[in-house]
């Protein structure tokens, strides 16, 4: 992993090369990772991988021109060659009137997100965890499939105006699907500290869902009350957060265009973007080295704030919020650490209080149907249940939905306690389970 002194050494080489080629400033992004992942299926490990890599990305700036070049060769000649490549592109482009001078230094909070015991997990320890999960599957007459990954990353940003940010973190993730002849169940978790991740408990949860959803019934599509597990909330609601971007609103490609500071969602919906939240992960600085500020994205149903990069904020007379992407880019800004405020309901309580509804474990293949109404389509997967008279009546065949997120977040009846959720369709977020009325299932599939 790249240390801070190594980053400084590389920066010095790049800055010297950039100055000699006429750059006014230079910025370097550093990323190094060690990622190990064990995949299992059919109750056996079938893929087991480890990768180590380090890359730098150099951005010189001269007047109103900038460009970027990346390399993973860290000898002096390769670093200088990357600078030359970036300078050659820079000279070939027109001036960008909205390009600002590089950011100056600002205090960036140090957030401890590195666990030594997570980093020290060995392939054999991962295999032992998988063996225990397979034992749970075999004892239930089920077949297990999943993945156990352990990542450690180091990210840094240094520029010639004095910005020097560095962040290290670990993340362990375990995902498991338990399958029976006619059904399946799924669970997934992630944590900075491996001690906060319990593969056996996740496997037991997935196993229980596979049992509960045996011999699924086919019921008619239509509008139903749904209870969404946090992973389902994450994957579906997550689709709207790229729109919480100042540049997206400026481009008129966000569903929040002409909707800021209006009652867009129900008054029980409050959302922040908080890089410092104890259940969050990621860097506390953005792609230009600006510290991430906590944003009140939605306050009691009213969109109040969005992320702003330095240049987009300047165009609107605002302060940047620390959500800019590395320059040059076409997206501008993005929120990365979403936290949806919750309530006090447990999922069990939501089920007990439901006369007739659908309980959803996870969603799959979610895509946008309409960008302004924010209608999304997708499927349920790995554990979808009919609730009748406050109890789980049976598993049901999977549904396709076509649902406006704006409408959905006006129909939230109850909220659970927020947890760190992991899905497959959007980055990890801190979200609660939700009970939602009038959710629109439009088709049913064959299983």
């Amino acid at each position, binding site marked *: 992993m790249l240390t801070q002194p190594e980053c400084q050494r590389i920066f010095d080489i790049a800055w010297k090369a950039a100055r000699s080629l006429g750059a006014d400033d230079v910025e370097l992004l550093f990323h190094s990772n060690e990622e190990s992942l064990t995949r299992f299926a059919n109750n056996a490990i079938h893929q087991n991988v480890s990768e180590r890599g380090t890359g730098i990305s150099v951005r010189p700036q001269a007047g109103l021109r900038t460009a970027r070049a990346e390399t993973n060769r860290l000898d002096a000649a390769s670093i200088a060659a990357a600078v030359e490549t970036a300078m050659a592109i820079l000279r070939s482009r*027109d001036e960008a009137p909205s390009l600002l001078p590089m950011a100056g230094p600002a205090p960036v909070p140090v957030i401890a997100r590195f666990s030594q015991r997570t980093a020290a997990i060995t392939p054999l320890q991962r295999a032992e965890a998988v063996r225990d999960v397979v034992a749970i599957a075999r004892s239930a007459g089920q077949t297990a499939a999943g993945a156990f990954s352990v990542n450690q990353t180091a990210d840094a940003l240094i520029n010639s105006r004095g910005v020097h940010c560095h962040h290290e973190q670990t993340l362990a993730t375990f995902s498991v699907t338990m399958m029976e002849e006619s059904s399946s169940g799924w669970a997934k978790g992630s944590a900075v500290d491996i001690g906060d991740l319990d593969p056996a408990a996740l496997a037991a949860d997935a196993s229980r869902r596979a049992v509960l959803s045996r011999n699924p019934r086919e019921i008619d599509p239509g509008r139903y009350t749904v209870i969404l597990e946090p992973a389902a909330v994450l994957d579906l609601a997550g689709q709207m957060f790229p729109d919480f971007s100042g540049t997206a609103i400026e481009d008129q490609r966000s569903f929040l265009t002409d909707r800021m500071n209006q009652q867009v969602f129900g008054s029980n919906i409050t959302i922040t973007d908080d890089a410092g939240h104890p259940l969050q992960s990621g860097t506390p600085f953005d792609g230009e080295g600006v510290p991430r500020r906590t944003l009140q994205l939605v306050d009691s149903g009213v969109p109040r704030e969005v992320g702003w990069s330095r240049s987009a904020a300047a165009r609107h007379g605002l302060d940047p919020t620390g959500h800019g992407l590395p320059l040059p880019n076409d997206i501008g800004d993005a929120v990365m650490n979403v936290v949806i405020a919750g309530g006090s309901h447990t999922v069990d309580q939501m089920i007990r209080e439901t006369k007739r509804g659908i309980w959803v474990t996870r969603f799959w*293949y979610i895509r946008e149907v309409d960008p302004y109404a924010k209608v999304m389509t997708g499927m349920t997967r790995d554990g979808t249940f009919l609730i009748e008279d406050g109890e789980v009546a049976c598993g049901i065949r999977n549904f396709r939905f076509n649902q406006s997120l704006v409408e959905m977040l006006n129909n939230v009846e109850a909220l659970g306690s927020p947890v760190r959720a992991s899905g497959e369709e959007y980055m990890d977020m801190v979200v609660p389970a939700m009970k939602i009325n009038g959710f629109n299932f439009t088709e049913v599939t064959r299983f």
Partner: protein
Amino acid sequence: MKDTALRALDLAVRTGVSYADVRLVSARDRILSTKNGQIAQASASESLGLGIRVLKSGAWGFAATDDLSAAGIEACAKRAEGIATASAAVMCQPVHLAAEPPARAVWISPCGVDPFAIPVDQQVALLLAADAELRREKGITLAEASLEIVRTRQIFLSSEGADIDQTRTTTGCGMWCHAFGDNEIQKRSYPNSFGGQHQLRGWDLVEDIRLVENAPRVASECVALLSADQCPETEGSLILDSSQLALQIHESIGHPIELDRVLGTEANYAGLSFLTLDQLNTLRYGSPIVNAVCDATPAHGPGLGTFAFDDEGVAAQRTPIIRDGQFVGYMSSRETAGVLGQQRSNGTMRASGWHRLPLIRMTNVSLEPGESTLEQVFDAEHAIYMETNRSWSIDDRRYNFQFGCEIAWEIRDGRHVRMLKNPTYGGITTEFWNNCQAIANRDHWTLWGTPNCGKGQPEQVMGTGHGASPARFSRVRIGGGYGC
């Protein structure tokens, strides 16, 4: 590069494994884009690294590194061996590889005019010109254009004696625009969504696309969509342009025929397939005019899935998938070919880079041209004709799908009678293909590139190719998703 790869192979073999292969990959790219008259992206990258895959005690291990020092490579080889040892602790059956004669070859994909030799300012000027043409249309609120060129050289060595040096150059180019008004956002892309067209070609691809010449029509359609009629909700005849049909093929033929998915190894993530092994040679996948192949050979065309050898050293092949409507083939690997009773893999193992393990991936999965003229495809009393993908979703066994397109037209008696916005259609895979009524001939066949296919954990994004010509389908559910 070759010496480094040889050293890695030697070190891997010395760890006592029964099989080893090494892929040393050098990759280079250039990405340029514009947005509303300004340069948005201007970047280049280079990377070099290697991946070592080993079999020990019948179990796989894989490790990758970009530390190409002697110590770095040795550590990588030992890591791969250690991982294989751990894998063997939770194993059902030892891996058996189908035999493959070790190839020794050098192959460089033809790319016409080298796209890296074209000056950046010339490339930027073209994108800016297209961007400007789009914005000449009143009502366009966002205009963008992009170019992405990639060159990858890979040296593949195996303990069986394979020695393959392969270089591929791909180019992708396109433009798109948005119009916002009256609480809706409309978009048009050219020549396709997903950043345009992508092929195993050079600068000549960009010249063929003719961005600037097409920009006025694309922009005009985009603005017109704001006032077009909503696509009705109905069941009836559907005509798809070749780019949308390419994605339909990708999702409802390409993914289901991945044998690893069929055998359950993607159950936790990408999902399973409805094409269980008992369906081979028994399932009527489509109507008798439906013929599909998986073809990585250069003779099929310059697709994103065209190569000389796959990433476990198996020569590119052409495999029939659907013949006269009958399901006849899967995509396989050396590990899985034996499940089908086949002596040899059909060569579809691909990795997204030096750092990732090869998986069964689509190469070029294409619908063969039909015999109809374009006029015959459109010769319907009533139909909806859709162009250019906007959204795509299919269940995790690949039965139920729903697609949205950017634009549609109502067709009456073979003629376009009105533009329709927000078109969608959906169905069940085999029902859809069995309702295929007409496929246009080779004059209208295009080998499209899909640059963003995701699969595997850690996820690997791969480029795949899909040849298609416009086709007509009957009894299709049209217009769903907007009645909510």
